[in-house]
């Protein structure tokens, strides 16, 4: 049978199954194939908080969504074109997101009456007409896989497990993905169990062949590679990019890195990754708790290392006192908060942007800390470098605010040329910096650089610069303990001025027509959805501007001016309005928030609607005004 080939410009696929079905791995592999093929892509894993929730239940469903295209895309997509559902729970949990007309591939083997009852289906949705509006492919994935693997000397359980590779093979066929990398991957992963490796490869190939042969699939799809700037690319997750950014900062500054961390979702992977790179001089310390993690990092900074701590919201809530100490000591420290749903334990595996206030204000006393936020998975690399640059240059703790969506999402990354990376100069103190009245020389640990207001960083081992620092208020210059009222006021204002004066690039506005009246201001991981929404709005003939903040503290110097250039400012955030509050207070601009705390990124279509509505009101208002 010859099959049709259709060209399409973009596809969104969601793989969904039980926690134990290997959906994350399947998604990762499909992503790798897609990346290697040269499409632009964006991914969104979504898994339960339990390690392995009871099989076949709704809370146990694990999903992975992938959006790929022949052009530059920004989000993992709003609604899947294709849903692969490994069991009834996966179908039930995900069906509502698939638009009518979408494609659904189901593993019919799992649609037993017991499994159906477990999730509350009284009749099989495969039979009762509830899928009438969709293109449904019923495949006996388990049976077919087991059959293919009969020859192999492996257990029935292992054979069944390979069904995810079978489905991957089928999808790979369906979208013309290159298969070499998956075969290589399987051989490497199961290097110690060659029989299992061979079985998985066989299942994968069988899935491909099934697509090629069966009459159930008559069309396959081609998505041309996306035109991207010249360069060498890889696909990268946010947490990996963040870890690499930190290692790059260590190279760029010549400072050995010391990570003090306590495991917590969704930050743990950074600890895992960094602990692999000991030959880069990276020391990783799994502390007894978050306070010890940051304490150890601060101690290492005192000793001349690039001190880093990684955690999520609950961990930041514990580190507040030590961050205050770091502010008072004026030592470099990079604090990574991979935000998740709160408050309290909240939704550990879901994304949210609700720690901005905590980062800005979560310490006793006036304790300003610069804040940097990445906008996409790959951007975590640059943001980490920028956080380290500020920390080292200004001798200050710096927040790097990523989130669960960036952490686990992935996209193609053009690998930077190492020679182009910024240089970070630690500029250690090497000798006295003060001539006393009696003509003798001294080292004053709080005598500042007049340009940056940074204090000197003298590390133990440097002869003649022995000094003591601490969390009690210090005399300007000498750093001796001082309870003097005027000195305290001076020091509080000086620390504030130092942070306020950090050299931050001007904010760029994406306003192609220059005629927009509505500005959408965002920060962090909402970049993709906002930008995608703006493109939609523009495609419909409306004008809208988009500016996205990398620096939340201090704000870029031109932010106030930009805000005043637009009639309306919309601030979409995955919180109840934290940036919008900061902007309102600072610039007295009536920024309106669009807020969701659903543990999921915004949908571009929804946001586009909100923007369009707002554009409507602007016109109305103007109409009245003129």
């Amino acid at each position, binding site marked *: 049978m010859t099959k049709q080939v259709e060209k399409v410009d973009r596809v969104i696929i969601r793989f969904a199954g039980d926690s134990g079905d290997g959906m994350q791995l399947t998604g990762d592999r499909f992503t790798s194939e897609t990346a290697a093929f*040269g499409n632009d892509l964006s991914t969104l894993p979504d898994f339960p908080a339990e390690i392995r929730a009871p099989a076949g239940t709704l809370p146990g469903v694990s999903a992975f969504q992938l959006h790929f295209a022949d052009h530059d895309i920004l989000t993992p997509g709003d609604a899947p074109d294709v849903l692969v559902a490994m069991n009834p729970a996966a179908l039930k949990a995900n069906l509502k997101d698939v638009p009518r007309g979408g494609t659904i591939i189901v593993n019919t083997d799992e649609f037993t009456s017991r499994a159906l009852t477990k999730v509350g289906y009284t009749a099989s949705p495969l039979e009762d007409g509830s899928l009438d509006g969709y293109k449904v492919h019923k495949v006996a994935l388990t049976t077919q896989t087991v059959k293919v693997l009969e020859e192999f000397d492996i257990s029935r359980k292992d054979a069944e497990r390979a069904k995810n590779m079978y489905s991957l093979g089928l999808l790979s066929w369906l979208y013309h993905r290159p298969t070499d990398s998956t075969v290589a991957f399987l051989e490497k992963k199961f290097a110690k169990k060659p029989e299992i490796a061979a079985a998985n490869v066989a299942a994968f190939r069988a899935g491909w062949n099934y697509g090629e042969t069966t009459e159930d699939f008559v069309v396959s799809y081609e998505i041309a590679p996306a035109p991207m700037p010249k360069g*060498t690319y890889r696909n990268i997750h946010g947490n990996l990019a963040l870890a690499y950014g930190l290692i790059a900062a260590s190279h760029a500054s010549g400072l050995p890195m*010391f990570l003090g961390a306590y495991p917590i979702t969704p930050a743990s992977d950074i600890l895992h990754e960094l602990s692999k790179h000991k*030959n*880069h*001089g990276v020391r990783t310390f799994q502390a007894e708790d978050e306070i010890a993690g940051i*304490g150890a990092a601060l101690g290492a900074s005192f000793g001349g290392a690039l001190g880093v701590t990684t955690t999520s919201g609950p961990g930041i809530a514990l580190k507040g006192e030590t961050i205050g*100490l770091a502010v008072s000591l004026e030592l470099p420290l990079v604090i990574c908060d991979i935000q998740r749903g709160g408050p309290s334990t909240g939704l550990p595996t879901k994304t949210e942007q609700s720690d901005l206030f905590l980062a800005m204000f979560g310490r006793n006393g006036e304790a300003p800390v610069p804040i940097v936020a990445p906008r996409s998975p790959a951007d975590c690399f640059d943001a980490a470098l920028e956080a380290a640059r500020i920390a080292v240059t200004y001798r200050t703790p710096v927040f790097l605010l990523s989130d669960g969506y960036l952490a686990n999402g992935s996209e193609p990354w053009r690998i930077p040329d190492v020679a182009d990376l910024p240089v970070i100069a630690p500029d250690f103190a090497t000798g006295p910096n003060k001539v006393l009245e009696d003509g003798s020389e001294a080292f004053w640990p709080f005598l500042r650089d007049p340009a940056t207001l940074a204090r000197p960083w003298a590390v133990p*081992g440097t002869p003649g610069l*022995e000094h003591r620092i601490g969390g009690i208020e210090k005399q300007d210059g000498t750093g001796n303990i001082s309870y003097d009222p005027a000195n305290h006021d001076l020091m509080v204002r000086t620390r504030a001025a130092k942070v306020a004066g950090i050299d931050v690039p001007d904010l760029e506005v994406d306003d192609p027509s220059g005629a927009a009246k509505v500005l959408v201001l965002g920060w962090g991981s909402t970049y993709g959805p906002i930008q995608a929404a703006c493109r939609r709005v523009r495609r419909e003939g409306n004008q809208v501007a988009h500016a996205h903040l990398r620096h939340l503290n201090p704000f870029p110097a031109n932010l106030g001016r930009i805000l005043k250039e637009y009639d309306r400012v919309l601030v979409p955030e995955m919180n109840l309005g934290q940036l919008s509050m900061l902007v309102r207070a600072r610039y007295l601009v009536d920024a309106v928030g669009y807020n969701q705390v659903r543990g999921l990124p915004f949908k571009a279509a929804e946001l586009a609607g909100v923007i369009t509505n707002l554009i409507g009101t602007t016109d109305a208002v103007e109409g009245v005004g003129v």
Partner: protein
Amino acid sequence: MPELLKLTTKDFKTDQEVRWCPGCGDYAILAAVQGFMPSLGIKREDIVFVSGIGCSSRFPYYMNTYGMHSIHGRAPAIATGLAASRPDLSVWVVTGDGDALSIGGNHLIHALRRNVNLKILLFNNRIYGLTKGQYSPTSEQGKITKSTPYGSLDAPFNPVSLALGAEATFVARTIDSDRKHLTSVLQAAAEHEGTALIEIYQNCNIFNDGAFEKLKDSSVRDRHLIRLEHGQPITFGAGEDRYGIVRMPDATLKAMPLAEAGDSVLVHDAHADEPDLAFALSRLPDPATLSPTPIGVFRSVRRPTYDTLMSDQLDDAARRLGSGKLDELLTGSDTWTIG
């Protein structure tokens, strides 16, 4: 090296006015530490004192080395990061009974099990000094203080027992006023590779005056103080009243008149692999009266230190894989090229 340095006690004093209450035991400890430092043979710039918060934690300001006066209870954690990333330094922690055992208890026990190369001086005055006199985790049960006007309810920690239960490799106890003993214990701790915990009984003459008087007053102290020395029989007492420590059939230790005890007096073995004896010795004093109190080194055994192990892992990796190249790392194994 010691000869080359020619440092004196004075070199370790700073220009900062010492601000403890007149008569505080902290002065004696400071003098002893400043006096001891030159004998270490380590350059001033290679020594760091890290403290928490409390009267005792003001200590670093008075030591002309590098130093950090940090926050309450966190000094062991901060010092762990410093020592683990800079194994070339000599890192000392100064802490109080509240700082180390109340808010900082967890960091302390974890530092001990990790065996980071830290020397921890725990100034135990059995009271919160800086906050003006609340009971501490080492205060005797029933203690009347500002926060316990009807007497405290909880059994105190025995810092030596706690440390031994936490896998400590070095644990010692000494007394602020006995400079010679204090110095000898500092010496032993400095020579130890790994975490050394030294509990120093320190008099707070304002809020808990005389807490250790029995162990200090030369007219009675010999009746209450057991001086542990490795390889020596464990005895104490004065004149006619001399006792030896023996093990009873029920396995506990007891003080027995020397005459009666004869050969059965235990010989101290600070280097025993297992901490059984050290632990049993730590249980001798009555928690309320502190009699009889062993001082000296309870336990001192070798176990690889955390910082060395960590450095070894880095060296190993560099040896096996070569020193890390950033471009290789960033490129990884799964790339594609455009243009």
